[in-house]
């Protein structure tokens, strides 16, 4: 029945099936690259199965710390050190994000083609690209540790400078994507340039830019834990000390705190970001109004 219903009266020329040669070559190249990568990395692949034996042993060592009474010595100290360190890491990430956000606003405007002179755009983009190629670790080591010494100041600044690269670029791209209509309307009303930038460009990109900032905060929480390992304070510093003395139960507690807190912050931040971008819906008129005043 179904074949009869789809059969057509006339029979036209069937288009030729495209060749599969390109897909095949692509797959072969991919396999070669993977094998070559494994060989060139000089890794001792013979040790790979140890993950299941040694890995399990260390995992159980770390788990031991978690199942102890957290109010008994020395575990109460471990927990308070872990939570205190995590709080310092989050503060570092937050301050770093704020520094990056504030600096990225002018950089974003300077790097947007529909705002700035082409020469300014190019120069700003080169600076932003240069910042993006360097990881926060490098900023912390070569720029900030010598100036601020070890501690969370250096970490926060390193995160801030690192954030300018991505936030500046994302802000510039958001600005380039705005609806030009309101800009024309503002120009037609005789508004000065400052008001046009603030109330047509900035108002149009604000929700996206806020979401970028929050996303960067999520990234910075992970990065701040790593920065601590090289001495920039926070839970990373605590972790590196625990590693030095091979206190596996302490390390277990630290990793647990890092994972749980990071997941929690991600969830909250993600929900806020979603709300900023999508709006809060018609049922919640008050919040919508608050957002509108931005």
């Amino acid at each position: 029945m179904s074949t009869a219903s789809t059969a057509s009266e006339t029979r036209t020329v069937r288009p030729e099936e495209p060749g599969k040669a390109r897909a095949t070559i692509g797959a072969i190249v991919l396999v070669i690259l993977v094998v070559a990568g494994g060989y060139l990395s000089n890794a001792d692949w013979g040790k790979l199965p140890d993950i299941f034996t040694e890995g399990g042993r260390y995992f159980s060592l770390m788990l031991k710390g978690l199942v102890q009474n957290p109010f008994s010595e020395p575990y109460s100290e471990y927990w308070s050190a872990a939570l205190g360190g995590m709080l310092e890491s989050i503060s570092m990430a937050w301050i770093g994000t704020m520094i990056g956000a504030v600096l990225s606003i002018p950089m974003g405007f300077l790097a947007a083609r529909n705002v700035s002179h082409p020469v300014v755009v190019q120069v700003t983009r080169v600076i932003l690209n240069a910042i993006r190629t360097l990881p926060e670790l490098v900023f912390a080591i070569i720029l900030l540790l010598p100036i601020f010494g070890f501690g969370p100041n250096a970490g926060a600044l390193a995160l801030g400078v690192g954030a300018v690269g991505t936030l500046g670029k994302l802000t510039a791209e958001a600005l380039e994507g705005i609806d030009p209509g309101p800009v024309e309307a503002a120009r037609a009303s005789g508004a000065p340039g400052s008001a046009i930038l603030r109330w047509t460009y900035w108002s149009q990109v604000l929700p996206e830019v806020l979401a970028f900032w929050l996303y960067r905060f999520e990234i910075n929480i992970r990065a701040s834990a790593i920065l601590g390992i090289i001495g920039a304070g926070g839970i990373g510093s605590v972790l590196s000390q625990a590693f030095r003395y091979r206190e596996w139960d302490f390390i277990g507690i630290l990793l647990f705190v890092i994972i749980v807190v990071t997941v929690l912050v991600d969830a909250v931040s993600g929900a806020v970001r979603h709300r900023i971008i999508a709006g809060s819906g018609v049922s919640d008129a008050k919040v919508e109004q608050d957002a509108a005043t931005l």
Partner: protein
Amino acid sequence: MIELNGVTVRYPNGVVGLDDVSLTIPDGQFVVVVGLSGAGKSTLIRTINGLVPVTEGSLKVDGVEVAGASQRRLRDVRSDIGMIFQSFNLVKRTSVMNNVMMGQMHAIPAYRSLIGAWSADEKERAFQALERVGIVEKAWTRASQLSGGQQQRVAIARALAQDPKVMLADEPVASLDPPTAQMVMKDLQRINRELDITTMVNLHFLDLARQFGDRVIGMRAGKVVFDGTGAEADDAVFEEIYGRSLTADDVLPGHA
């Protein structure tokens, strides 16, 4: 008074938008400009407030020369000219109030406008502008939550907040449904009559042009080919302007 004297506009790509146009529009007149797309209607309107630069000729608004004016001078001229657009051109992600405030930005110092610190007087002026178009209760709503007709009224309020002497409207009802189009045109007419604001509207619906135009200007290929009253602008005149016979598409559906 708006005076165009031999105004020619040539775009950078060589297209001639206006071809030696001379017009005088006295204060308080309600002028409708008709013509096919590409005939130069939009260019005519945008030349008056300097959004499109004049290539040759002289264009004066209340005695101030717009052709070749400096940015500073242009901003002064524009602050006296309200403009309304086909696609409303509101910032949808901010409040109606902030959108209407745009009409007063020319008089608000940067340090206050950057942080959105509007004075009580400025807010009251925005409320009054919204009152004129009957949507004062929407002042704190996000512009994105309004219907098309409401958005166009906010745009009119934004222009009114400038306290303009001239109102320019570029196809203000082209993206609205017929009853809403009627209402918006009536708003514009009422504002023209009550506040004595010289009004220039681009339209492509013939019946609206006849109904609202104290004066109808027909354009074709950048030239003025008709200039008369709405009553004089009969079908024969429009066929002349359009260079073809009229069809049902030329009138507002469900209206004429």
